[in-house]
């Protein structure tokens, strides 16, 4: 009896082990938003219904994304493809674990195709690894703009025409003057001083890391002073806080928001009125600001965010990865459909130029946001982005909060102290960086 049992167990073990040896027929894609998921499910799979593998999508919030990916990178548990946010794309590009996309040996040179399409060069630069060439690509270009409330502009500046408003906020000095004017009418120029940082950083001359050393420019002191002076003229809402979102709606007091291409569609538009409401500013100004917005460049050209997509070297389906990347970043038909559906700004000069005159957003009272973004995109300097941006900017933001000291608790921290602590923190967090 015992021998029969042992035999049965042995047979079962062999069967289960053999089941494990079946080939892996899924393409694992790790994302941090459902944007690419929509692309895959509504477009890619529709165009390619007979794939020999299934695409399995896993979405993790971007705050936890790195913590989830780092332990399995370059191991058998790694996914086949990943979406990479601008905050950490450089970090992963530099690891050398991403799949090269301009591998000419099998004829697939996606990077070259992108260049032929007129992709914005800075997006390719960011996705380029020194040894492997282009490893990550994006379909997006993310220039930033300043969105303002037309009704408030009319009251304070006498006009809501973009050209006139731009003249009022053309540089940081004028921006501060405009803040004072707006406050006199009871309006806050921006929701919180935190909105300024991204924009300000775009005005630097070089990135955070130059030749392996921390590059802290003198203009950062200007940022601190500007943030401190503008704080009383803001609604004192932290970025991404509930109050920040609330200020986008009808009855709010905030004049403007600094947001990039995706900010318009995913942040401002949905939050300009309560969910499921179809009211506009004309019909219900108390709750909805839809139709009351205008768009200008603002005091400084900048770019913010963006999502890159890449394959990993450990994948067993490099061709499948490249196919999906090619579809998303180069396929003109797809991008055309995508743009018309979402109004997203793509990194494809040919396509952009051919369609940019077609747009007019009711949300912006008829303004053509596309042609403006196309214009702003020319001013983006991709060389400012480095792999340490996320860490450095977070540590600096911690010090900025203490310097501005909105609620006046405790003593104000001096700029020298802030920078000393900032440097100590950066040194502790990034040991390979030389900190002066």
């Amino acid at each position: 009896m015992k021998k029969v049992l042992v035999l049965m167990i042995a047979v079962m073990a062999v069967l289960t082990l053999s089941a494990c040896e079946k080939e892996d027929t899924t393409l694992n894609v790790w994302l941090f938003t459902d944007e690419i998921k929509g692309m895959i499910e509504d477009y890619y799979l529709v165009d390619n219904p007979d794939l020999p593998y299934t695409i399995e999508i896993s979405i993790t919030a971007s705050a936890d994304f790195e913590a989830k990916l780092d332990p399995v990178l370059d191991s058998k548990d790694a996914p086949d493809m990943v979406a990479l946010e601008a905050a950490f794309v450089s970090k992963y590009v530099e690891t050398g674990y991403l799949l090269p996309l301009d591998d000419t040996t099998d004829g697939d040179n996606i990077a070259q195709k992108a260049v032929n399409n007129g992709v914005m060069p800075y997006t390719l630069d960011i996705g380029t690894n020194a040894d492997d060439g282009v490893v990550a690509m994006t379909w997006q270009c993310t220039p930033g703009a300043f969105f303002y409330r037309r009704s408030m502009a009319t009251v304070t500046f006498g006009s809501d025409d973009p050209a006139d408003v731009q003249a009022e906020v053309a540089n940081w000095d004028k921006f501060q003057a405009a803040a004072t004017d707006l406050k006199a009418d009871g309006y806050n120029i921006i929701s919180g001083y935190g909105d300024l940082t991204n924009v300000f950083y775009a005005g630097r001359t070089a990135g955070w890391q130059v030749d392996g050393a921390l590059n802290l420019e003198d203009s950062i002191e200007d940022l601190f002073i500007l943030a401190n002076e503008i704080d009383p003229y803001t609604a004192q809402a932290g970025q991404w806080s509930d109050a920040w979102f609330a200020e986008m709606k009808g009855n709010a007091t905030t004049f403007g928001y600094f947001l990039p291409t995706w900010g318009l569609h995913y942040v401002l538009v949905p939050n300009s009125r309560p969910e499921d409401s179809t009211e506009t500013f004309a019909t219900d100004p108390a709750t909805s600001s839809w139709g009351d917005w205008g768009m200008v460049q603002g005091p400084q050209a900048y770019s913010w965010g963006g999502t890159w997509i890449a394959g990993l070297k450990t994948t067993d389906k490099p061709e499948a990865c490249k196919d999906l990347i090619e579809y998303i970043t180069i396929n003109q038909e797809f991008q055309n459909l995508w743009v018309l559906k979402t109004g997203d700004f793509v990194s494809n000069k040919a396509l952009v130029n051919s369609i940019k005159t077609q747009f007019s957003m009711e949300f912006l009272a008829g303004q053509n946001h596309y042609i403006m973004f196309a214009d702003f995109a020319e001013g983006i300097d991709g060389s400012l982005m480095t792999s340490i941006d996320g860490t450095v900017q977070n540590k600096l933001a911690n010090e900025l909060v203490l310097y501005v000291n909105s609620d006046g608790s405790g003593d104000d921290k001096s700029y020298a102290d802030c920078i000393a602590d900032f440097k100590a923190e950066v040194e502790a967090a990034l040991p390979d960086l030389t900190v002066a």
Partner: protein
Amino acid sequence: MEIYNEETTKKVAKKINYSKYGYMYIAPFFIVYLLFNLIPLLFTFYLSVSDVRGFTKIGDSSIIGFENYLDIFKMNIFWEALGNTVIIWILNYIPQIGMAFILAKWFTDLRLRIKAAGIFRAFFYMPNIITAATVAMLFFSLFAYPFGPMNQLYGIFGLDPKDFLNDVWIARIIIAFIQFWMWYGQTLILLMAGIMAISPSLYEAAMIDGATSGQMFRKITLPLLKPIMLFILVTSLIGGMQMFDIPWLLTKGGPDYKTRTIMVLIYEQAFGRQGGGQIYNRSAAMSVILFFIVLAMSIGVAYLMKENKTKGKNGAKYEKK
């Protein structure tokens, strides 16, 4: 009258054999300890002298000596973190031992005869069984800015809302309070056990000799509680120096990094906070330094407490006059 024949010798021989069962019973513990504690411990020692960082694989790592330790001693942040840990621990421990003593005295006092002492003990111990994460979320919501319950209370009294968790000393005091609240029940139970172990005949003898309550406390209770006090102090020290869950969940080391205890710093170095991280060798080195600090403190405390004891006949300990 013992008869030493073959039968009784066998019985004696059987008695000796029982010890092998004892070893078998404690073997599982040692096996588990070896796998899950000792090997990771030795690995940490290795990491602390190696160059494992970022995506470096263990197989490619090499030993670089004590460079990591020297780097750490030069880091101001490290000393500040130690300072934060000690400050928060002291703020937690003194009220904890004070409160536990007072309550222990009341609950074991024969004259007071507090009823239902057992139920009170259970209530005081309850905060200890709630997980730290839950407690942290509770206090986080309680002190939320601007509309948490505390701020609403402020509003009732006409005060402006205050960002409690962003104020250096208030955040520290809140963390110390949470630790105190969670652990004073445990301390209370230990002290009560210690006091009840003291023979009441000593107190009776003292009362006959005319000792006051205070004298009895100082000359009988306290000295005889020294072993328990030592145990409490050492365990509280070890736990306090390793304080991580509450500071991390409540403030993540802010504001201005002033509630960043040494364990929070170790975690940040290894796993990052808002970026950074993956500096495994420095993190391991800090852990080793923490280990030696706690070891030194424990030995120091034990030495101070046992200073006046000498061994008398039959191993009895008595105080040197």
